[in-house]
């Protein structure tokens, strides 16, 4: 077995509860960790241990994941005992009451989410396309002017969604170093609880001040309109704004860069997409499925005893739904280990499922379609500028991707 490069054939049969976040196999940076893939195949509902020694359930198959995430008996409220925390930082944030509706249950969750759904609905997103296209073109103009190489993350993948979410929220983009640094701390799996608290407090203080300013100098952004409703404190608005700011740029940024890399590594898929740009809509769904950047899963806690595929999950027990393995479920996506841009992957759960399913998914789709289509069209000679083995993958972060992507054209 020592020479076999395929860890798939040598599964690590877990005797003890599976340790999460699990580690990916070296040389397979696009695939879920072998231990969790093994669980999906052999023990689809299984026990796991977290970094702090706490135990919880791991739900790994597509149907079970959809079932858990759409069942109101599984709570998103991180203040409930038994809630599983993927990092010390997330645990720290849970007690601070500042995570807004992503960590609340209905009816409060729905009340807050519905204050934002109009801003992210499909027709709003469609109307924004020309603006997003303009931003993509400007960034590529600047990146390519007089040069033949650059870091795609720093110059394109990150600034694009960052500029868009700033526009939407009414946050000055000049401050991007400030909030990008803090959101990196929030998402780093090894950040200490103290570091996370400081970053969270600084972000909230910044957004609270912004909310207060908008009460006197209103504009058309989300922060200003939330303030104008008169129902929310500056603190509530700051918590919502923080959620949107962090969720709104790290995710799309990482999907853009990781998708580019995945396409470069799959030249036939890249060629197919270049030949027929109308494939872009479906290709983005397939990339979302294949890459599932929310790679450590989505967490809940049971509020009643619930049976999932024959296992009774007791009230007060935590659950992690590994959406990355759900998206590799062979019963739903045959040949799931292959990237296939012509596949109909629309049923993937990369945005989660149930009432917490990603609020920004329409925007994310439009941004990804525009970013990838524009990049491929404008840089026909696009290639990786470092050996693949040297690409710095974000195994250390809550959102997967690459820290940098040196490219040439």
């Amino acid at each position: 077995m020592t020479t076999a490069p395929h860890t798939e054939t040598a599964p690590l049969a877990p005797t003890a509860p599976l340790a999460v976040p699990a580690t990916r196999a070296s040389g397979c940076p696009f695939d879920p960790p072998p231990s969790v893939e093994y669980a999906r195949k052999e023990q689809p509902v299984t026990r796991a241990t977290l970094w702090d020694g706490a135990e919880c359930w791991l739900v790994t198959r597509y149907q079970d994941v959809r079932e858990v995430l759409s069942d109101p008996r599984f709570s998103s409220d991180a203040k409930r005992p038994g809630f599983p925390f993927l990092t010390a930082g997330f645990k720290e944030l849970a007690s601070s009451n500042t995570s807004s509706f992503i960590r609340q249950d209905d009816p409060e969750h729905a009340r807050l989410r519905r204050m934002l759904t109009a801003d992210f609905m499909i027709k709003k997103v469609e109307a924004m396309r020309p603006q997003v296209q303009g931003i993509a073109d400007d960034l590529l103009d600047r990146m390519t002017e007089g040069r033949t190489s650059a870091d795609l993350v720093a110059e394109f993948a990150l600034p694009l969604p960052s500029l868009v979410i700033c526009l939407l929220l009414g946050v000055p983009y000049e401050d991007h170093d400030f909030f990008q640094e803090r959101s990196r701390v929030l998402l780093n799996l090894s950040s200490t609880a103290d570091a996370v608290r400081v970053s969270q407090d600084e972000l909230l203080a910044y957004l609270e001040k912004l909310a207060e300013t908008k009460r006197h100098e209103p504009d058309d952004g989300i922060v200003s309109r939330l303030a104008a409703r008169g129902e929310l404190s500056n603190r509530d608005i700051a918590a919502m704004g923080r959620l949107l700011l962090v969720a709104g740029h790290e995710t799309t940024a990482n999907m853009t860069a990781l998708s580019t890399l995945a396409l470069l590594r799959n030249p036939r898929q890249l060629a197919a997409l270049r030949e027929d740009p109308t494939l872009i809509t479906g290709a983005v769904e397939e990339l979302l499925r294949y890459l599932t950047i929310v790679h450590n899963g989505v967490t809940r806690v049971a509020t009643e005893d619930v049976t999932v595929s024959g296992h009774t999950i007791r009230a007060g027990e935590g659950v992690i739904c590994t959406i990355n393995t759900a998206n590799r479920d062979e019963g739903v996506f045959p040949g799931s280990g292959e990237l296939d841009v012509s596949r109909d992957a629309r049923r993937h759960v990369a945005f989660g499922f149930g009432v917490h399913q990603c609020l920004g998914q329409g925007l994310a789709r439009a941004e990804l379609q525009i970013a990838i289509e524009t990049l491929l069209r404008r840089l026909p000679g696009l290639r990786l500028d470092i050996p693949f083995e040297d690409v710095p993958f974000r195994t250390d972060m809550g959102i997967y991707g690459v820290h940098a992507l040196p490219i040439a054209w």
Partner: protein
Amino acid sequence: MHITVDQDKCCGAGSCVLAAPDVFDQRDEDGIVVLLEARPAAGLHEAVREAAAVCPAAAITLEQAQERV
């Protein structure tokens, strides 16, 4: 095919509008689902079934008519 939507359950994800734009829309004020066509033509049935399958909140219910297509 007869479609009903539950606006209380809807979480405004917009997946139905992407899957079947001729049948579903979103309310201007809050992005909640609006049914444009409760009995869509046969040519739209597949898109509607996809919309129901991707709805994260189980807000779309389909009843197959007696005289099936």
